[in-house]
């Protein structure tokens, strides 16, 4: 039947890399998205402009180009920074950019822009009366955010969030180009070594489909949870 010619354990490791990369970038992108959304809704003109510049630039350029720019350019940038530090303070350190961290930062940065748009729309969909009611109860801004705005925002953001997650998951395949040993990278090495591309690429495709299908189910459950007391209306 399926003969992975000894590449099975490495493929499994690669799947682990893909999954942890995806989850960590998701966390980063959600944090960045929340920051971007609040910057876009803030009264500060500078914050608004900066956030708009960020989302426009990121969404106008291919993921792969951004990834190459940040990965290859990032190392030069970090080196320049440490050189400057050496000249200025005499502290001599060397930071080597690790592919995994570069991958997480790049993907997080890219999807932060998409999440920002999703969250902004969702925050605006929360009824203003809810926030006023929270204030009337004497809640401060932080409490209003965590108890009222965030949970209600999530209800509107979930479809967009799940969509972004699906795209993000597939974007992780690109890190194989900058040399990270994810599932795609190992499968392409194995394909070249064994001359059996169909076997390995199909296995990788099935694993991606599996992750996508499981997360679809998970998001459906989350959606149900966040829609409590809301779905009956229509």
């Amino acid at each position, binding site marked *: 039947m399926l003969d992975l010619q000894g590449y099975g354990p490495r493929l499994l490791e690669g799947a682990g890399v893909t999954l942890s990369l995806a989850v960590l970038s998701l966390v980063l992108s959600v944090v960045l998205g929340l920051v971007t959304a609040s910057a876009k809704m803030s009264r500060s003109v500078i914050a608004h402009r900066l956030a708009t510049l960020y989302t426009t630039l990121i969404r106008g350029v*291919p993921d792969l180009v951004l990834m190459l720019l940040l990965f290859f*350019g990032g190392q030069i940038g970090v080196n320049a920074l440490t050189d400057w530090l050496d000249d200025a303070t005499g502290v001599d350190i060397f930071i080597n950019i690790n592919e995994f961290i570069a991958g997480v930062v790049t993907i997080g940065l890219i999807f932060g822009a998409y999440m920002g748009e999703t969250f902004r729309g969702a925050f605006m969909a929360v009824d203003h009366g809810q926030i006023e009611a929270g204030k009337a109860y004497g809640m401060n801004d932080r409490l209003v955010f965590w108890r009222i705005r965030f949970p209600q925002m999530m209800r509107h953001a979930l479809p967009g969030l799940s969509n972004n997650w699906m795209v993000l998951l597939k974007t992780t395949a690109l890190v194989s180009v900058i040399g990270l040993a994810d599932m795609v990278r190992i499968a*392409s090495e194995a394909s070249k070594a064994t001359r059996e591309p169909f076997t390995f690429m199909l296995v990788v495709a099935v694993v991606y489909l599996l992750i996508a299908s499981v997360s679809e189910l998970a998001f459906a459950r989350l959606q149900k949870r966040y829609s409590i007391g809301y779905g009956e209306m229509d």
Partner: protein
Amino acid sequence: MQALLDQLDALLANNSIFTLQTLSFYGDGLVTTVQLVFMSLIIGLILAIPLAIGRSSKNGLIKWPIFLYTYVFRGTPLLVQLYLIYYGVVFVEGIQESWLWPVVKDPFVPALVAFTLNTAAYTTEIFRGAIKATPKGEIEAARAYGMSPALTLRRIVLPSAFRRALPAYGNEVIFMLHASAIASVVTLMDLTGAARFVYARFYAPFDAFLFVAAIYLCLTFSILYLFRFLEKRLLAHLQPMT
């Protein structure tokens, strides 16, 4: 033209990276990218229309295979699909002796096939959604006029479905433009391929990639404004009255 080139040359004289030669790499890359994206979008669109109609059919034998196709192509990374086709085609029995070999040896063709199949899958789902959203009354009215199902499809369902699909299809076009950067991975000299070449030659990541990012940004905005214009024209009846 020659005067213009001379002027450009003088402008670039103090620059060691963006010489006329590297700019011509970017120029060729732009042509390859635009060709690849345009061709895959057109062929994908032509494939997607019958597929979307079949996907909306009540017959399970037509509906489910198409669903499987879109599910697989939308659920796996384009890079994996490209690898599968690019590496896979070499190992098809006897292809290296056949007349097809000179055609598929060039990375452009496997890339075009992978991109076409990918965009056709996404476009099929976009159209299916648009077809499904057809108001029931319109179909009933067509039936009351005595139109056959085929005529209803051609005169009533499809024209309004295309319009409804326009905003989502605009996103798909931009998505395809961005996805086309992946073609550089299989040694195709598209825009990103040119940028990677210039980076490798001069070890200047900021110059090479920021320049190409600016080109992509211009292309993205051109597509965006084109679709905004189309939406304004074709969806005028849905705009709020002023």
